[in-house]
């Protein structure tokens, strides 16, 4: 079996962010493997532990620094990695990213492509779906559990829906986007980190993929990020004390005249 996990490197959301003139200040940020992608790697490794011949590759599109995220996945236990790196990617949205990934996967053989259900930085949740459409293969979102059936060449996905969990069977090849509720990604051992240096890290450029430079970056995108800002600070709530009958009329008055929701 052959699985791929699509990875993204994102700013560590536990750190404090700074925005200046509508732009995220990137200098002091620490970058990490997107948590949802880490769950996809972990779930693949759980399957790999049970099905030893599973070959797990990682693919990441992004700047040179992105190889750190790939090395983490390799340290966790993936077999090899593909780093699609090109200056032409600057400003890519999910559509442009899906163009690149489509070009990458078109000559690859695989049973399943896993990805995080969204990235922690932009929270769009689009790339997996767009890629499935472009590759014309089945797709299930928000997976919280995976069971592989090697004989039937299929995967049983437990997905979290609004009203409960659903089980969906997909035939290979397919794409599954993973929730971080699926598992707790393993912490790579130091031995794993050391071994990750020796695992293949394949560099891929836009030219290698046969893509025109206008299919990626800003020109290949269908949306443009104009500016960023912090959410407005919420005002503290008001607390009323007293007799119930008075409180009800005070509350109705506030909701009617101040909040204007009644």
């Amino acid at each position, binding site marked *: 079996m052959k699985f791929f996990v699509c990875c993204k490197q994102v700013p560590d959301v536990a750190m404090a962010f700074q925005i200046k003139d509508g732009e995220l200040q990137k200098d002091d940020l620490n970058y990490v493997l997107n948590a949802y992608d880490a769950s996809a790697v972990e779930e693949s490794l759980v399957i790999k532990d049970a099905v030893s011949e599973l070959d797990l590759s990682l693919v990441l599109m992004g700047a040179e620094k992105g190889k750190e995220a790939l090395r983490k996945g390799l340290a966790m236990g993936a077999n090899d990695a593909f780093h699609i790196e090109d200056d032409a990617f600057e400003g890519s949205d999910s559509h442009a990213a899906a163009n690149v990934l489509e070009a990458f996967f078109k000559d690859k053989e695989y049973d399943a492509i896993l990805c995080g259900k969204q990235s922690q930085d932009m929270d769009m949740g689009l790339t997996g779906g767009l890629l499935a459409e472009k590759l014309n293969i089945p797709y299930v979102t928000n997976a919280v559990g995976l069971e592989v059936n090697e004989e039937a060449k299929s995967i049983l996905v437990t997905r979290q829906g609004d009203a409960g969990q659903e089980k969906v069977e997909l035939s290979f090849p397919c794409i599954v986007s993973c929730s971080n509720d699926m598992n707790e990604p393993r912490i790579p*051992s*130091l031995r794993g980190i050391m071994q990750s240096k020796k695992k293949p890290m394949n560099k891929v450029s836009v030219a290698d993929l046969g893509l025109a430079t206008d299919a990626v970056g800003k020109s290949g995108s269908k949306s443009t990020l104009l500016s960023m800002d912090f959410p407005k600070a919420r005002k503290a709530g008001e607390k009323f004390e007293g007799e119930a009958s008075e409180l009800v009329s005070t509350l109705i008055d506030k909701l009617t005249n101040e909040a204007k929701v009644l």
Partner: protein
Amino acid sequence: MNFALTEDQKMVQDMARDFAKSKIEPVAMALDESHEFPEKLIKEMGELGLMGVNIPEEYGGAGFDTVSYSLAVMEIAKGCSSFAVTMSVNHLVCEIIRLYGSEENKQKYLVPLASGEALGAFCLTEPQAGSDAQNQKTTAKLSGDDYILNGKKAYITNGTYSNVFIVTAVTSDKDAPKKEISAFLVEKDAEGLILGKPEHKMGQCASNTIEVTLENVRVPVANMLAGTNGFKVMMNGLNSGRIGIASLCCGLSMAALDEALAYAAERKAFGKPLNRLPVIQDKIAEMGTLLEASKLMTLNAAFVKDSGSNYAKTASMAKYFAAENCLKIVDEALQIHGGNGYVREYKIEKLYRDARITSIYEGTSEIQKVVIARQMIR
């Protein structure tokens, strides 16, 4: 000069940070209360390679450099310094065996210690010999192919849970013109090795500290390290140990500064958050600067060790500076918390108690200055 961490060093740092955040921090306050040694988590640290970070792979270690080791101790200490001191002492024992053990010693003792299958303890201090380490009373007398060890060792970290003890003892006769001290590898099951009850300590309560008594303990000659150059073993062991404890001080200070910053952002006084008050900003700036200097000195000592140069002075300077400033940083962090910092509900109260030992163990600040001055005045 280049102060940037390598990709490997960053990965080790991130990994230790992940472990500290997800496994240590959630249990640190409860362990402080119960004084329980986290045997299972220490084992887990060993499985991840954190008990032999800078020991070569062929001897069971992870094979990273001392800078990586220092970064890992900082992150683990930020989670809880009890875990970091357990880790630091194990590394000290590993380092001594790596430097002075025979190939047989390395295979038998270093491999399990560095791979986390076993834990080590360093038995130097005695009830009457702390800073005055030369005043050892534990003796080792040759008897056939064995040495017979007798004496008492105090404040032995990891003692109850250790599989291997490095014990220093006087090998020269009482009336010999020069006192000779040697170091021996003693197994936990050795007959006559008596482990005392854990000390009830002020801080670092989840680390294990006991008294060890040796009553006619037989140790094979093959387990003697560096012959009668035991003092050299002690000093070199302590030099490497000082990098571990300096790193621990940095991690503890990082935790205290984080607590102070969070509290100063949340707590209001005079109509604004504390962190908007110049008097608090002054404290924060001072704490941040001292911590930055401590980290630089500690990583520099690790770098000097990695470069193969004599690092005795830089390690002592780092340990002295990082420990003294750790005390200042936790004190100011507690001051920012006001009365709340004095109650156990707040983490800073634990950090304050945990910090106090740092200027005492692995050589007091006073002894560090002696070492530093000796290296400077030739």
